[in-house]
């Protein structure tokens, strides 16, 4: 969470600078930046943004893949004999995870990832129109 908020904080920090007359450079300024810094500096900021965007993505998908691993290989295989002592309705829990639950969790994971990435895309202003 902290990392993902960073770029936003960066933008906020820059806002006061907008009081000083903005330096107009090329027309193709990134629509996100409220201020247009000199070209070299702008490129540096974009690189940093790109990097934190990628880090945010990798972190999100790592969390998702840990859950992916735990429900399938953990609950569905390694811990299944243990979990089978617990019942979910008429299902032994380990069996349920292996033949039903893991698939539902996979679905939720992809849905969550797609939704969260949509948010991250917008935050870093790399979303498609």
């Amino acid at each position, binding site marked *: 969470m902290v990392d993902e908020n960073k770029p936003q904080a960066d933008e906020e920090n820059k806002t006061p600078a907008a009081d000083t007359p903005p330096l107009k450079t090329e027309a193709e300024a*990134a629509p*996100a930046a409220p201020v247009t810094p000199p070209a070299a500096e702008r490129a540096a900021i*974009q690189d940093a*943004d*790109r990097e934190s*965007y*990628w880090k945010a*993505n*990798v972190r999100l*998908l790592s969390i*998702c*893949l840990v859950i*992916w691993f735990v429900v*399938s*290989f953990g609950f*569905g*295989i*390694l811990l*299944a*004999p243990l979990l*089978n002592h617990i019942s*979910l*309705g*008429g*299902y*032994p829990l*380990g*069996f*349920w995870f*292996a*033949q*039903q639950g*893991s*698939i*539902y969790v*996979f*679905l939720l*994971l*992809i*849905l969550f*990832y*797609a939704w969260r*990435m*949509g948010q991250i*895309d917008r935050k*870093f*202003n*790399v*979303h*498609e129109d």
Partner: protein
Amino acid sequence: MDLKLLTFIVVGATFALYIGIAIWARASSTSEFYVAGKGVNPIANGMATAADWMSAASFISMAGLIAFMGFDASVYLMGWTGGYVLMAMLLAPYLRKFGKFTVPEFIGDRFYSRTARLVAIICLLVMSITYVVGQMRGVGIAFSRFLEVDIAVGLAAGMTIVFIYAVLGGMKGITYTQIAQYVVLIFAYTVPAVFISLQLTGMPLPQIGLGSTVVGTDGVYLLDKLNQVIADIGFPAYTDRNTFSTLNMVLLTLALMIGTAGLPHVIIRFFTVPRVRDARKSAFWALFFIALLYTTAPAVGAMAIYNLVKTVQPGEVGHPEGSLLHEERPRWMHTWEATGLLEFKDHNEDGRIQYYNDKNPEFSAMATEEYGWQGSELRVDRDIMVLANPEIAGLPNWVIALVAAGGIAAALSTAAGLLLAISSAISHDLLKGIIMPKISEKRELMAGRISMVAAILLAGYLGLNPPGFAAEVVALAFGLAASSLFPVLMLGIFSKRMNSAGAIAGMLTGLISTLLYIFIYKGWFFLPGTNVFPDNADYWLLGISPQSFGAIGAALNFAVAIAVSRVTAPPPAHIQELVESVRVPRAG
């Protein structure tokens, strides 16, 4: 109405539908031919991907595997769905951003190497052709059984249908026919499951029904009842792990997952959506539509085996009159006996069917001594369970006809997707990419269609004269996809440092090690009798089965690719820039 006539009508009507769609959605440009003009809505694309992905193996074989393997069949359920999580997060969005037509194209560009592209083409062709042979065989069997024609005639009919809509329509036609095929196959799969679940548990949703109580008992759960019913005839508990070792279970699941994510004909589906975020959404919809079948399958399997055992063992186990009289067997047993896929041998000559686990030495000895049983007398081929299921449950003929149409739809849609992947690898990657880069779009399209015809003919021929393997084909295709393509695709996106030498070394290591390991136990090119070691756990390296080896092949691929890339020159700056750009949906 007579079953045969009804099947003709239902299957014929679905074919008319597919061909109609193919003519309506003819491809006119290479972009439409390969990636449907990149204009497919994510939900529609998800549905088409589901049909593309779910083959005759999913539709016909899987529930049968579950029925006879119980818990252990979970490897297929988790393995064939979990791969979509990898696909959605590790491959699909970035490959869509890359924005080209084929998987070898990405590998060739990313690793700035024609050799890499060529190795990728070889991997793709080997796995797609082996996979499509299995599908054509499935089409042939389904046709010949239900239409009561010779397998060659069935196969020819299937080839003609695939020819019309795949060759004319390309990806555009295939996408829309696959949507129709998805609807047919999911309807055909779930309708009997709902009926059977209602009969047994009073619960229409099979996913809930499997965890519910059995109608006519004092709140006994179906799975408890099933465990007890099969324990009475010597089988281990349905809901517990039994045959696979933990290592093989983990590795096989992993190999199927990675293999799923690395299948080129599934990956190219994500090139057809308009935007990167649609690729992520599309992966969700694909798994959603797949999950409708995959979460129903456990109920189909469990209820089928329950019904089967209850049918042949209506009375008390061991009582002289407890087993079913062969003369009084239901009609569906007659029908399937004729195909040879269901067999009755009256070992103890009492005219009754004794079905039990004669491989369980303790139970078998007890049964011989106390019940006078001389061995299990019923042999049921696993592959008939889904097709026979509606008959076992006594459902009307139109449901049986529908299941036939569904099985054919599943096989045809996968065959078409694979053929497209094969033809684009030949015409786009091999011809335009390597041999004659100046080819015009029109001629490339023509080459695509010609290579598709050639692929259909080859697949048809091999489907008719299979090199003596069936399930191994699927294992090989997945093992190859897992060990050759997935690791370099992922490294190409996630490691800027990955270079051409690393990628080529990785792909070759994964491909060759997996092929060798399979051939050592299954015979060189699957020729019977040419295997080096017998295919059983005593001879497997560290107890790893050939089917599970894809996961090890993938690990070797990763390791070799990373090691080689570290000791060779880093990729040029423009390639590192390319990697940067595929990582973001819109360049900032």
